């Protein structure tokens, strides 16, 4: 095993296998962030292909391109992939790379746990995707409403939803461990002077998201475990014919599901809050309002879940209560919107790709937010629930919001992460295609939903007025695909032809711009003194320009005094995270085939896990 902390690439003479080994055993937050981002981009493309197939099926009435069953599988996997395997890990990946830099730490609080989170994500994603090959892809929708998900109902009796349940739990473990890591990093590893009210807003957003994950995921863990019992062990938690209560599934699911929306969108809020001040060359307007409104959104997010269930008959009192709390969330969200607008107002705008995406984000997210307020009103929800209106609404939030925010973040931080700029020309092309494609795809959905096109239905009859706009939506989806292709091309071209950015191409003000691009393994050679929210602007434009020695905060909790005498202590690479993650995944396959020898899979999986746990524990005891 390699014994020293490995500095960022510079491979050269090293063999390919050594490089692969380095990446497999890496505990460097920057490399793990990059792994997250590229894996998630791959799943994003996969989930996008699902969507394209769905759109091709819907391009014409009574189309036979997909069978109803395949259609069910594709929309289930599209939702599951995009939520759990694309947007969430893209957020985690960016956060992984950027957050420790922004707070002036030299890694995450638990580097090995960080690696474990990544491998669990990768294997969880592979587990779910393997259903295409060795089984049947999940087919009961991404929110897996019981009893359809429990006993199949009209669906074929397969282990499709077991793939979903187990995959979701592997990904859930990854998310919870990752979130704990983010919380501890942000609370405990801030550089001297980085007070809470000086933390970059992206860090605030990631902190709130981490808390949301920690508090929301247990609910879906419980729900999905009970579902697994119903499916495999003969219990009847969610089976009404045996006394169970399908409403219980819905409540447990949405207690997780609604905060999940903020888990997806809040990091984009954070990215926008970083991009706007830099590209309008002016401090963020209302820093405290933006920071605390994130906290408010996070907390209120736990009080609104049943607005997804107005139509199932909770009764007028419950509907009214959840409607009221849901409407309340528009207040802190509106606060943010106005602060962003005020940041742009009067700034000297530097219209580069990140700002294009940022401005479009506001435009699109406000549309999604307004339709969200509409849907929070039960009478309107009765009319539009399970129609394309809802699909249009949440794609404006999650595509127009989360994805546009993420692209703003990619173009903004790419030079920091890879030491190469993404092409501005391709970026603008990509932006306009994505903007046009996005609106062409999702705007007509509102209209189609209003005139009655149901979601999750594999086809529609001719002559109902659905044809034209469905065709337009499919064209829009193809335009989005083209846009994503251009982004990938941009990424590939940038590796060789990308402009070399220097440390600080955008005139940024947060700490990540104070180190090299890409940063060294230990992140900072020298740390600017942090006396404000904009330490790097202080450095460039302030009066006192000085640095301090970076502080070795990572080793907190260690007991070996000798290690601290020379410089920064980075933990050695570790092979155990991938072992542990692999063991859990093997156990997951065991659960999948529980009645055909899967018990042995569980035993073997747990044994492998034990090797990983013991290895990690002994490494933790050593550092």
């Amino acid at each position, binding site marked *: 095993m390699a014994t020293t902390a490995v500095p960022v690439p510079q491979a050269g003479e090293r063999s390919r296998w050594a490089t692969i080994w380095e990446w497999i055993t890496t505990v460097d937050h920057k490399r793990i962030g990059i792994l997250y981002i590229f894996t998630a981009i791959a799943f994003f493309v996969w989930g996008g292909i699902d969507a394209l197939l769905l759109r091709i099926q819907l391009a014409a009435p009574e189309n036979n391109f997909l069978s109803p069953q395949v259609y069910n599988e594709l929309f289930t996997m599209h939702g599951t992939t995009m939520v759990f395997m694309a947007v969430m890990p893209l957020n985690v990946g960016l956060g992984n790379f950027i957050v420790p830099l922004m707070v002036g730490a030299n890694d995450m609080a638990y580097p090995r746990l960080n690696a474990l989170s990544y491998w669990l994500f990768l294997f969880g994603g592979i587990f779910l995707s393997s259903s295409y090959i060795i089984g049947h892809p999940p087919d009961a929708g991404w929110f897996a409403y019981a009893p359809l998900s429990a006993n199949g109902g009209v669906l074929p009796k397969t282990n499709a939803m077991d793939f979903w349940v187990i995959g979701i739990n592997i990904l859930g473990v990854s998310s919870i461990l990752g979130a704990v890591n983010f919380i501890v990093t942000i609370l405990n590893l801030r550089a001297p002077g980085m007070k809470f009210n000086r933390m970059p807003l992206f860090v605030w957003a990631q902190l709130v998201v981490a808390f949301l994950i*920690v508090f929301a995921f247990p609910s879906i863990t419980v729900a999905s475990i009970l579902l697994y019992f119903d499916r495999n062990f003969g219990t009847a938690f969610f089976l009404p014919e045996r006394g169970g209560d399908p409403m219980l599934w819905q409540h447990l699911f949405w207690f997780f599901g609604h905060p999940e929306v903020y888990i997806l969108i809040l990091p984009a809020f954070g990215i926008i809050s970083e991009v706007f001040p830099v590209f309008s060359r002016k401090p963020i307007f209302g820093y405290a309002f933006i920071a605390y409104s994130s906290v408010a959104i996070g907390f209120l997010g736990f009080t609104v879940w049943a607005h997804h269930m107005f139509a199932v008959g909770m009764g007028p009192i*419950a509907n009214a209560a959840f409607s009221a709390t849901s409407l309340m969330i528009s207040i802190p969200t509106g606060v943010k919107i106005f602060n962003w607008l005020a940041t742009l107002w009067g700034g000297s705008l530097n219209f580069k790709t990140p700002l294009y995406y940022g401005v479009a984000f506001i435009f699109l997210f406000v549309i999604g937010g307004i339709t969200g307020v509409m849907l929070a009103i039960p009478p309107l929800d009765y009319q539009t629930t399970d129609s394309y209106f809802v699909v249009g609404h949440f794609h404006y939030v999650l595509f127009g919001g989360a994805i546009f925010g993420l692209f703003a973040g990619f173009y903004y931080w790419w030079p920091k992460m890879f030491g190469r700029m993404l092409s501005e020309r391709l970026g603008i092309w990509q932006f306009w295609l994505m903007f046009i494609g996005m609106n062409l795809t999702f705007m007509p959905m509102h209209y189609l939903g209003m005139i009655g096109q149901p979601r999750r239905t594999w086809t529609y009859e001719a002559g109902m007025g659905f044809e034209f706009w469905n065709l337009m939506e499919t064209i829009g989806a193809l335009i989005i695909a083209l846009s994503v292709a251009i982004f990938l091309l941009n990424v590939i071209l940038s590796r060789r032809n990308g402009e070399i950015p220097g440390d600080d191409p955008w005139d940024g003000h947060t700490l990540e711009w104070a180190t090299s691009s890409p940063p060294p393994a230990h992140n900072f050679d020298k740390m600017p003194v942090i006396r404000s929210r904009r330490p790097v602007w202080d450095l460039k434009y302030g009066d006192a320009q000085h640095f301090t020695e970076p502080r070795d905060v990572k080793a907190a909790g260690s007991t070996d005094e000798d290690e601290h005498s020379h410089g920064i202590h980075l933990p050695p690479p570790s092979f155990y995270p991938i072992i542990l993650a692999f063991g859990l995944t093997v156990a997951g396959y065991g659960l999948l085939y529980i009645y055909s020898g899967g018990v042995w899979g569980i035993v073997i999986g747990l044994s492998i896990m034990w090797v990983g746990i013991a290895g990690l524990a002994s490494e933790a005891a050593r550092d």
Partner: protein
Amino acid sequence: MANQTSSQAEVAAPHHDAHAPSNVRVYIQIFVVLFVITMVEVFASYLDEPPINLETWIEITVLVALAALKGLLVVMFYMHLRFDSRWFTTLFTTGIIIATLMAIVFLLLWGYKASLGGLVL
């Protein structure tokens, strides 16, 4: 480190600097209290039955209050939140608040429906 002036550090001091007897004595005292409360709980669980026949909701209130008291003692003294950084208290309470919210709203939701025999706690 020693001459910390913050209230938090002062609170922390007795825990870490105190000597064996006082600590152990507190631990044992807490245990005795926990034991007594448990006995009272068992007794209280018969409040709504003959010969006492109090309303069920009174019994439930008493029992939940006693359990909460026990939990509080365990968290404050055995898990040291009484002496430790307020941050740990904040982290834990946030989770407990959301958990309580979940439980209460769930009970209200199902009680409100009351279609299958009402909420029989």
